[in-house]
């Protein structure tokens, strides 16, 4: 498919690059490789390099480099980035999820008048509009395939995730009609084609499916696996959800508090070409890596 890169400015301090108007893994990989090329180029005056799902943004100091020159530098890197093999060395992470938990359920009931279908829960609604016969079948699909972290942001450490299945199989739901003023911390959400994990409690517009016991942002850096850096996710991470029940959720929370929770994380190399040849078989291989068979 043909992608059309579009360049623009965000005021006098940002260059904005849209790799494609629509979301795809190709657009994400282009954004990621161009981001990498810009970082490696070490262009003077650059202060922030931010990849997004299908676009990216560079913040720079125009007292050091003129906006036109900054734009030209980035354009000169595009051809190389486009040619680079869409393969990355990354990691696959298992995230336990307590679907249909009491906390997101209590929250969604409080905001029913802001929802498309006040008579259903978010899970019931998402299952129905995506053609699943039951919530259990929908959860099976949600937790059945891996997801790509295609952006980290909105608020500190929040991953946006893109489901690694053919487009026709991707879960899609609208956002709430009006955003909620509250979302429990660590809620598993979904809006448009993107999944997310709310890293902090706060406002939100994504549908709510469940909650994970595994913190992903800790500004105090006290949680054992967040001591080195307060944010868990990076763009390019691969996520696999695993449904857990109340007992396991409660136990995980205790383990986290006791400093004994160890996320299941394995290094893995991802090849976009190999994935496209047979997504189901490729995902099965990824899960073998995760479970160390």
């Amino acid at each position, binding site marked *: 498919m043909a992608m059309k890169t579009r360049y*623009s*400015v*965000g*005021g*006098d*301090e*940002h260059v*904005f690059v*849209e790799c*494609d*108007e*629509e*979301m*795809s893994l190709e657009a994400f990989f282009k954004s990621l490789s161009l981001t990498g090329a810009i970082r490696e180029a070490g262009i003077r005056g650059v*202060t*922030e*390099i*931010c*990849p*997004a*799902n*299908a*676009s*990216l*943004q560079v*913040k720079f100091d*125009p*007292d050091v480099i*003129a*906006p*036109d020159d900054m734009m030209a530098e980035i354009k000169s890197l595009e051809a190389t980035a486009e040619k680079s093999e869409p393969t990355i060395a990354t990691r696959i992470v298992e995230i336990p999820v307590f679907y249909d938990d009491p906390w997101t359920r209590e929250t969604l009931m409080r905001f029913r008048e802001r929802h498309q279908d006040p008579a259903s829960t978010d899970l019931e609604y998402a299952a129905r509009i995506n053609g699943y016969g039951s919530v259990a079948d929908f959860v099976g699909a949600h937790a059945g395939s891996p997801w790509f972290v295609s*952006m*980290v*942001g*909105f*608020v*500190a*450490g*929040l991953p*946006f995730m893109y489901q690694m299945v053919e*487009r026709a199989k991707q879960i899609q739901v*609208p*956002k709430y009609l009006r955003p909620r003023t509250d979302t429990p911390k660590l809620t598993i959400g979904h*809006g*448009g*084609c*993107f999944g997310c994990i709310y*890293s*902090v409690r*706060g406002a939100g517009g994504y549908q709510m499916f469940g909650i994970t016991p595994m913190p992903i*942002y800790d*500004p105090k850096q006290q949680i054992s696996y967040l001591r080195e850096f*307060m*944010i868990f996710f*990076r*763009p390019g991470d691969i996520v696999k959800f695993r449904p857990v029940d109340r007992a396991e959720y409660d136990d995980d929370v205790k383990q986290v508090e006791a400093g004994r929770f160890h996320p299941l994380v394995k290094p893995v190399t991802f090849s976009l070409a190999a994935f496209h040849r047979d997504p189901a078989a490729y995902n099965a291989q990824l899960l073998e890596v995760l479970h160390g068979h």
Partner: protein
Amino acid sequence: MAIEVVKPGLSTSVQDLGRPGYYHLGIPLSGGMDQYAVTAANLLVGNAEGDAVLEAVFMGPELRFTAEALVAVTGAELPPKLDGVEQPGWTAFRVKPGQVLSFGFLKSGARAYIAVSGGIDVPPVLGSRSTYLLGALGGYEGRALKAGDVVPVGAARRDTPEGRSVAPALRGAVANPAELRVLTGLYWDRITEAAGGQFFDDTWKVAPEADRIGYRFRGGHALAFKPREQPFGAGSDPSNIVDSCYPYGSIQVPGGTEPIVLHRDAVSGGGYFMIGTVISADMDLIGQLQPNMPTRFVAVDMASALAARHERNRRIERLRGSLA
């Protein structure tokens, strides 16, 4: 040396010049919304320009000092009082141990900056003492000040005289209506030409939803979109895009109705289209706008934006020169 918080004000937080380098992980710059006023306050009391100060919005705190210090209040016209006696703004004055700094009613602007010789000495996090409220990061325990807090202050860097003042011509001022210069771009082409023209013709008003994350405006016409089939992943509303990064100062218009200009605690990305970006030279001004303030957006080109930036830099140079 420390400051005891007797009353916290409306939302008083520790801020410096910000925390660059983590926006790609959703951690915004933070720092004082009016960076010029932060710089001026620090220079007046002999601090480094990037030392941490207190940012008070609309209403000042009440603070008791445990030791002698030099203090300066810049930014909004929020009259400082020492044991009840009014002190001049944009001027360094001496505070003795046990004295209480309080504030009168806000006369103009929105945010006052309180610098103390030695700087607010909370531990730096990721290279900055600024408070990122949404992420409970940095500053004083990651939050706005509360009554009873004891805020640490560093040792004064050098002996600085009291009574020094920023010349009136070098103080910040807010014109009415406020004018924010804008470089169009980003997803500007999503709206019709007529809608784009109308946006700059309208006089907007600052909405009550105006904080460190962003400033919302209302009172102008809704934007009309060019028709298109929404791209995969964007969402069904014509104002939706595939979630992208949000530049600082970018103007998003959810649903095409109320523009929001993101500021220093910006959400780093999301799914609303943006029509352009407020130029860097006008970002300080936004931090001084009160709700209901009439505001015009003015379209400029890159050359004008850079000229305005250059002019702001020269102004800071003059400020430095006058307080050297």
